[in-house]
């Protein structure tokens, strides 16, 4: 492209000077013609432009550019700079004339604009803008020749402030008309918007057009191809945002003074929606975010204190909808919700504590179900609130969890013993899983077990729960009064899911032992039948030592002939199957039934359900009707701790009568009561004493302390073995981390365990509070 004018120059240069004078007058003439045409387009486009005029103008522009070539060259021709100038100058005159023409036209408009104000000004601006831009498009086309050659070359060369003809129109508009008049136009816009905010209907299309106009003027002077929003932002957005702030500042201040906070929230919410809608309808999307921010600031942030102060009132009165509104308002501002979360956490904690206090008037008689239900009720209530009002936000859930953890672990009931919460929860689980008259439905039971797990998750002393749970599971299994295997398995797998394999390992083993025992009994029965011996109708459970929270009986015992024969047969059978295993009889857990046939006036023989100890005592009366305490003791070999309660129950049930004294003990004698009477024909005499269970609880609590010490020590040794050397404080916090899933250890207890390990020389003190591991 560039090479062509160069070759041209070589031929035309000599004749340049002679043409100059001639040309100048011609230019004048042609421009007048052009100007008339442009003016017609500019002012009376609605009348139309006929093809002849159109072609005329187009040709004139073409001629203007082509016939003038030599002129430009001759004026500035010199060897140094002329290489490109010659060709470029061809359209300069025309360009300048057009520019001048536009400026003059716009100055005229500017003067005219002074006659209008407010909405009339707005209408004037829009009308003229539309006329002007439509005309500009036409003129742009008519001047295509200029655009394509002279303008293009100028721009290619990197000349600033040379634009294509359409852009030239915009630049002129901006510089001549827009600069001085935009402030007033904007004023009119803002007045309209305020009217609308005050509830009047307005012609919002006008605003939309103003926006469009302002946006079109966003020309990047350094690169015409680019558009920017700078002009629009400065001239429209900035004042718009300012006015918005001022309006809402004013309005909200007044509204709050005259209305309740709840009313204000509704108002603010409506206003925020309204502004969002406004952006959609007639504003540029660019303003959406800053406008939202401005509104949030003046409508919410500036009133956040009174909003937050109201939150407690809303909580106290369960105003869920209003809390939801407050949540959605405060979630719009940075750090808006944190104070709410704190209040919420506090409130839930207090509600939980109050609920517990209400049911725990007498802690000793507190039903596990009542306690757990009280905990659950609060949790359910506020979990629902989080879900419905607080958008189920994780941070609020965390506050809820914190509060629940507090009131589950440190409430009125826990004051009487810090292990109370897990203990009661385990007991409630036991109630649910035990065979009972109520016979809860399976799905219902499953639901309740899931709820148990909800509380379980908050329990800090999970080891305590485990202790009680395993004791009670053992009891359920041994006494075979578990309501269903499915429910038991389901509960164990829930615990496993929450705490891991290790936590439920023993529970699972216990469960398995019972299954294995069932098969074993079937085998044993077949074995006995094969022998042709007449055995007892017996069932044996083989419990793995170490998995069951059971201990060997603390009394000697000489089982009755009938029993021991069967036991020995079973023992032989078992040894045959599993060589090398040692069986220890847990007599204290054995039980059976005996049928009576001595009672006078009985329509049917009574059946007694008895412990094995009671059975041994009663069987003595097969030999004689009266036995002394000493005789019983020496034959059964039971010590007083086992013998006395067994006798007491038999006396209390009037199966036996006492003579030579009225308190069970040495020197007394016992006779069979032939006149025994009971409403039921099956009488359960195998009932534990209240004091026994109390004692068991105390024991469980004691073993917990022991186990914790061991757990801590083994954790410390494990950590030190891996690290070899560690700062004391680091070791303490690492230990807490490892143990926390089971219980929350006290720093003091950890220190004590470290001391024990120091004394046992597993650890040593090194310099600088470091501890070292001694293998």
């Amino acid at each position: 492209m560039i090479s062509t004018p160069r070759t041209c120059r070589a031929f035309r240069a000599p004749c340049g000077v002679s043409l100059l004078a001639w040309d100048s007058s011609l230019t004048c003439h042609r421009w007048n013609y052009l100007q008339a045409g442009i003016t017609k387009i500019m002012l009376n486009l609605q009348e139309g432009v006929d093809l002849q005029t159109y072609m005329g103008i187009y040709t004139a522009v073409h001629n203007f550019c082509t016939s003038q070539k030599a002129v430009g060259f001759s004026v500035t021709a010199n060897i140094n700079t002329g290489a490109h100038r010659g060709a470029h100058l061809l359209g300069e005159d025309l360009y300048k004339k057009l520019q001048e023409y536009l400026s003059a036209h716009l100055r005229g408009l500017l003067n005219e604009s002074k006659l209008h104000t407010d909405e009339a000004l707005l209408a004037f601006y829009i009308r003229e803008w539309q006329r002007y831009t439509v005309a500009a498009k036409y003129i742009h086309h008519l001047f295509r020749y200029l655009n394509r050659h002279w303008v293009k070359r100028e721009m290619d060369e990197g000349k600033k402030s040379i634009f294509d003809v359409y852009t030239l129109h915009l630049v002129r508009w901006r510089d001549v008309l827009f600069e001085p008049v935009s402030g007033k136009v904007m004023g009119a816009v803002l007045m309209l918007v305020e009217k609308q905010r005050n509830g009047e209907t307005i012609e919002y299309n006008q605003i939309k057009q103003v926006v469009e106009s302002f946006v079109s003027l966003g020309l990047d002077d350094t690169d015409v191809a680019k558009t920017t929003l700078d002009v629009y932002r400065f001239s429209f957005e900035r004042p718009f945002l300012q006015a918005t702030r001022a309006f809402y500042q004013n309005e909200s201040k007044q509204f709050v003074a005259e209305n309740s906070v709840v009313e204000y929230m509704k108002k603010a919410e409506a206003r925020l929606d309204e502004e969002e809608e406004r952006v959609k309808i007639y504003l540029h999307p660019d303003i959406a975010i800053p406008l939202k921010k401005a509104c949030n600031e003046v409508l919410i942030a500036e009133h956040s204190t009174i909003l937050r102060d109201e939150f407690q009132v809303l909580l106290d009165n369960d105003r869920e909808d209003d809390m939801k509104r407050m949540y959605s308002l405060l979630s719009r501002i940075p750090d808006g919700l944190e104070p709410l979360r704190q209040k919420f956490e506090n409130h839930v904690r207090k509600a939980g504590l109050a609920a517990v206090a209400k049911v725990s008037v007498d802690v000793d008689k507190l039903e596990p179900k009542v306690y757990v239900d009280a905990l659950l009720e609060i949790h359910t209530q506020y979990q629902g609130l989080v879900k419905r009002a607080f958008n189920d936000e994780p941070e609020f859930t965390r506050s809820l969890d914190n509060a629940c953890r507090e009131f589950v672990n440190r409430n009125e009931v826990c004051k009487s013993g810090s292990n109370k919460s897990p203990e009661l929860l385990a007991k409630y689980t036991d109630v649910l899983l035990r065979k009972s008259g109520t016979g809860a439905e399976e799905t219902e039971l499953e639901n309740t077990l899931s709820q148990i797990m909800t509380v379980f998750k908050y329990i800090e002393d999970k080891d305590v729960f485990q202790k009680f749970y395993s004791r009670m599971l053992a009891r359920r299994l041994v006494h075979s009064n578990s309501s269903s295997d499915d429910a038991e398995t389901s509960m164990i797998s829930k615990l496993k899911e929450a705490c891991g394999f290790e936590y439920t390992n023993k529970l699972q083993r216990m469960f398995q032992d019972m299954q294995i025992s069932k098969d074993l009994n079937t085998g044993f029965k077949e074995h006995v039948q094969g022998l042709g011996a007449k055995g007892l109708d017996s069932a044996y459970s083989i419990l793995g030592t170490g998995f069951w929270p059971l201990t060997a009986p603390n009394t000697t015992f000489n089982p009755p002939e009938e029993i021991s024969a069967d036991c020995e047969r079973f023992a032989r059978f078992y040894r045959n199957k599993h060589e090398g295993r040692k069986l220890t009889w847990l007599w204290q857990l054995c039980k059976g039934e005996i049928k009576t046939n001595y009672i006078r006036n009985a329509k049917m023989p009574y059946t007694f359900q008895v412990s094995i100890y009671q059975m041994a005592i009663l069987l003595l009366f097969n030999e004689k009707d009266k036995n002394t305490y000493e005789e019983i003791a020496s034959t059964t070999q039971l010590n007083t701790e086992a013998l006395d309660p067994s006798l007491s129950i038999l006396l209390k049930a009037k199966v036996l009568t006492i003579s030579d004294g009225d308190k069970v003990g040495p020197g007394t004698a016992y006779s069979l009561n032939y006149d025994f009477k009971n409403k039921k024909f099956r009488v359960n005499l195998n009932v534990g004493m209240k004091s026994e269970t109390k004692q068991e609880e105390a024991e469980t609590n004691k073993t917990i302390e022991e186990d914790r010490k061991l757990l801590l020590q083994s954790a410390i040794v494990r950590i030190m073995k891996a690290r070899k050397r560690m700062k004391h404080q680091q070791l303490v916090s690492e230990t807490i981390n490892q143990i926390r899933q089971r219980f929350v250890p006290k720093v003091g207890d950890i220190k004590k365990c470290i001391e024990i390990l120091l004394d046992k020389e597993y650890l040593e003190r090194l310099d600088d509070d470091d501890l070292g591991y001694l293998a």
Partner: protein
Amino acid sequence: AAESARATKSDGLKRQDMDDEDLVIEELGTDMIGPASIEKYTETLGINALNYEFFVLCEIVQIDELFQLTRKGFTEGWMSQWDKRGSPLEANIEAHRRYIRSRIEELPKDGALFKKVYRQVFLAGKEPEVKTLPKKIAMAYWEELFTPTVHPWKTKNVNFLEAWLVYMEEKWTRNVSKDMWNQTLEFANKTVMDDTLGFWSEDQAWPGVIDDFVLWCRETGVVVTARPNVGMQVDD
């Protein structure tokens, strides 16, 4: 050079004309001597067997469990001492006498030496096969070791030794373990630098007995807490 010096010294000990120390050596032929003979030896060395001066000897000759002196402890103990010019000690009673006297004089000034002596006392005082020191005995040793002229455990405001002994008497029911013994000195050294006990915090590695002592000191007013103006943080 040190090796050969030691060798000569060892020979020297055997060859040398026997002096008062011979008595001890002779008895050490049976490998171990008891308190009676040790007492005689202290007279020979010219030190007081009834106060801390004796503990300095304990540290040198590694007197062990129930105040038994072994041949090994005696020979190796003396052989490994160096005089002020950095050469091995001469193996005669005069040199030993001079040396132990200078050590006794250093004791109040040399914290590291005191620590060595202090730690040896625990080993010397306890019974074999037992890892702890009876409380009563430990208390007597503390009283002796923290002699005001040697290693005072008090400041112008607080007599910690006294408080510690009262606390031991009233609150502590168990024996004293090695760790507790050693840490007591560490703690004592800290307290004389800061008698408000401001250095202490529960998170530090102090044994529980010391934690409890600090709390006891504050409760009973032995130590005035440095921050009386800090109000309780009340949870709303």
